[in-house]
């Protein structure tokens, strides 16, 4: 197996035998004014531009198209991509994960999250309203990263055109539909702010007297 370069190797900018860097073969830059003039003239009259145009034209008539037919067709997005937020529910029980701690509201660097909370009938904290102004959001992911409950996460919906600059999204819009949560159709969230796969090994066990 190929030995992966170590971090040290990457930091080593000395171009030498065995290092990760090497020089590429390239034409030498013109040194004198005359040489530069010559380069401009040859490049202009060699019609290099039409070489590229010809390739496009040829491929067009061959109908062998590789581009994605957006918006009819969309590419899958990487799990760690940070697009419009989603609010998760707990599996099986379907309970909303958000506890209304307000950390996302606090950490948001563009100050676009706002929430109202109250005490509910069971003496628990309840979120009554929650909005994100997507017109301001810079999709930095801080909210998802700080959330202690893995409640707010970034989903894959990257389209958010709107007629107005201020463009709000509410709690209900982001919330996973209840039936999906209960029927187990939601996968464990792999994206930004999720726990790392080997988290269990790192957790210290607290003694419990039961």
């Amino acid at each position, binding site marked *: 197996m190929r030995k992966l370069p170590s971090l040290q190797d990457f930091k080593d900018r000395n171009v030498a035998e065995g290092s990760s860097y090497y020089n590429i073969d390239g034409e030498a830059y013109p040194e004198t004014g005359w040489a530069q003039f010559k380069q401009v003239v040859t490049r202009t009259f060699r019609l290099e531009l039409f070489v590229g145009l010809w390739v496009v034209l040829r491929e067009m008539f061959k109908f062998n198209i590789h581009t994605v037919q957006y918006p009819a067709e969309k590419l899958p997005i990487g799990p760690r991509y940070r697009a419009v937020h989603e609010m998760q529910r707990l599996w099986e029980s379907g309970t909303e994960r958000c*506890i*209304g*701690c*307000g*950390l996302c*509201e*606090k950490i948001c660097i563009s100050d676009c999250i*706002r*929430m*109202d*909370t*109250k*005490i509910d009938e069971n*003496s*628990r*904290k*309840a979120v*009554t*309203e*929650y*909005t994100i102004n997507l017109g301001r959001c810079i999709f930095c992911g801080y909210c998802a990263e700080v959330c*202690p*409950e893995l409640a707010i996460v970034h989903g894959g919906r990257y389209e958010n055109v709107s007629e107005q600059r201020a463009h709000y999204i509410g709690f209900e819009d982001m919330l996973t539909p209840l039936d999906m949560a209960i029927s187990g159709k939601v996968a464990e969230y792999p994206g930004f702010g999720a726990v790392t796969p080997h988290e269990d090994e790192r957790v*210290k066990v*607290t*003694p*419990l*007297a*039961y």
Partner: protein
Amino acid sequence: MVNFTINGQSVSCEKGETILNVARKNAIYIPTMCYLQKTTPCASCRLCSVEAEGVEGFVLSCQAPAIEGLCVITESDSLHKERVNIMKMYDVNHPLECGVCDKSGACDLQNKTLEFNVGTQEFSAKDQHRKIEHWGRINYDPALCILCEKCTHVCNEVIGDDAIDLYFGGYGSKVIPKNSETLDCTFCGECISVCPVGALVSSDFQYTANAWELSKIPAACAHCSAACALEYEVKHESIDAIGQEKIYRVTNDFEVNTLCGAGRFAYDFENRIYGKDKEAFLGAIEAIKKGAIRFSSLITNEEAMILQRMKEKLGIKLFNQEALNFSKFMKAYGSTSGQSLYSATLEHIRSSDAIVIIGSRIATDNPAVRYAMTTAARHKGARITYMHPIEDALMQNTAKQYVKYEVGAEEGVMALLAKTLLEGKTLDSEISAFFAELDLGYLEAESNVGDEEMMQLKKNLTRTKKRTLILGADLIAHAKAENIARLAGLIEKHTEFKVMIVAPSTNTLGVSLICDLDEESEGYAVGYNARGEFVLSSFGEGDLDMPSLNQQEGTFTTIDKRVVPTNVALPYNGYVLNDLANALGIRAEYTIDYTSQLPYSVGFECNAFDTLNARYGNAIKDSRGYELKSIEVTCDGVLSSVDELPEFNGTVLYACNPVLQFTPNTQKAHQLEEEACLRGSEQFAIAAKLSDGDRVEFDFGTLRQKRIFKIDTALKGTIALNPAYDLGLAAMVSSYRYQSVKISKVGS
């Protein structure tokens, strides 16, 4: 002076001061968890341990007084280990609910856990279910309680309700209401304030906002003359109310200052208006030009100054009977004491060992004075003599002696008191003659204050060094108020007593000093938070709206004779008094431009508003704003002889608000909602032939009032309490507080 060293730094202090206090004064940090400056040490956390040379083991710095030559070490490996262990114990099974806890971000347990880097729990204890208690305005979660005892200490030693206690049961220990199923107290909320964790929380505030989202606006309480320092905590109201601000709660610098429940829970009295009413504004200008303004003392010094300027410029009359009475009282007092102001302060009361209070139901008139007396009783063993016609259950475990006098007999009682206290002093011949001429037999018989009671009072004073005499609002509105004041002035001048005069309303003292008031007369008058033909009101029921006291900046003159600033907590977009003044040709850009123009001749300073400090900071005493200067005046007061004491027969009512209620402002507060009732004892009910829940009607002063009668089992005697806070614009304590009335029953 005691000289010693802390971490090699030499420090000095008064004898008896604790090591912790000295360290704090010298900016040396010692961690604490259960310490409260204003109570005796709870000594439950042991976090404040320090090492002292030559002393075996650790010393609790919050408790141990400094000793000459001691070498104190506040940081060492063993101390650190000890403190880490303490924090580990605190954290065992502490619920991991910081995410929702109200205290998060301002929690001592959170802070110290991080400070000592306790990241894991190594011990375990079997947890048990602990029920959350709902005690009205307070919720208690025993699972969060760390049993620091601050709440019980403050309730007992500062408030005086002594309403909560610690139930000791090992791991099941918790805070419980004392001798009662549920909490039955005056709901000052101070226990909420001192709780280092989220165990005691305000039920109204709980889970509505995080500490870090709230901006703190330093201000002065607007409800009584103590004008306690507080912070309005403000945030946007909700997602649905765009641009609307709201006060979520009130907090205080609880280490040194104390709030009552009115200050803490009655904060939402702002006058919410939408836009300016130009027509009403022009109407107000015309109305003012007609020649008189009647106003209440619920205004700032600056507004009083504007009114005074209006008087000077337009020649209008200013009516404020309550402040006029007070001003006359102070003048008469000065005419025998030689000083324009009384000399006692709340701090003086706190450190007194003998206190006489007369003419006030103080626990509801001015809770700050009550708390100062409680502190004196608990910390200095002060012997308190409480003189009043109605016994007050709230003062029962604070006052040592209760002297009951007949309603109306205040002048006689004051004469007897002055005679007792001035005995053996060298006095002017005229004054001696006054006392010699007193008809003691008559006075004692009519006032019902006997010789033994005065002897007992005198006995209470033996071997006491710091004494305070507190005079209440009953005396100020008395028909013979000036003679009473002259007698009090003599006591101030000739004895060790320092006198405090409790002003009846928030800024009565300021108004009485700033405004040149006129005798009340009928005819056209503009009312400013008072009745009138054209009403300017911050209560929201007048012809032109005015900003409330939490929507204004300005200053109040407090009971401590301090000029303290208050700030704008909520925006106001209507007209203010200064706009009216400008339209009338009295020019100033902002109301606070008048702060530096307050009259120097009566003791104000020329300080600009922005130079005034609004917070306590690290000072142990109130250092807000500045102190008024007392002016020396000539002693030319002549006592008039005490002839006949008025008699009050039949059904007598006393103008007195229930706990936490003061003005239409407190009435507005959503947390204090309750119906204003006429409250009397069972004895009163029998005498007046009333039963609980009866609807009654009677004339009180000039006002016909309809009320529901309630029997209050905590009351004794035959005088009923008639509230005034709900009377809106008519609510002003300007006449004698007791009145004989004819009550007619109109239903039940």
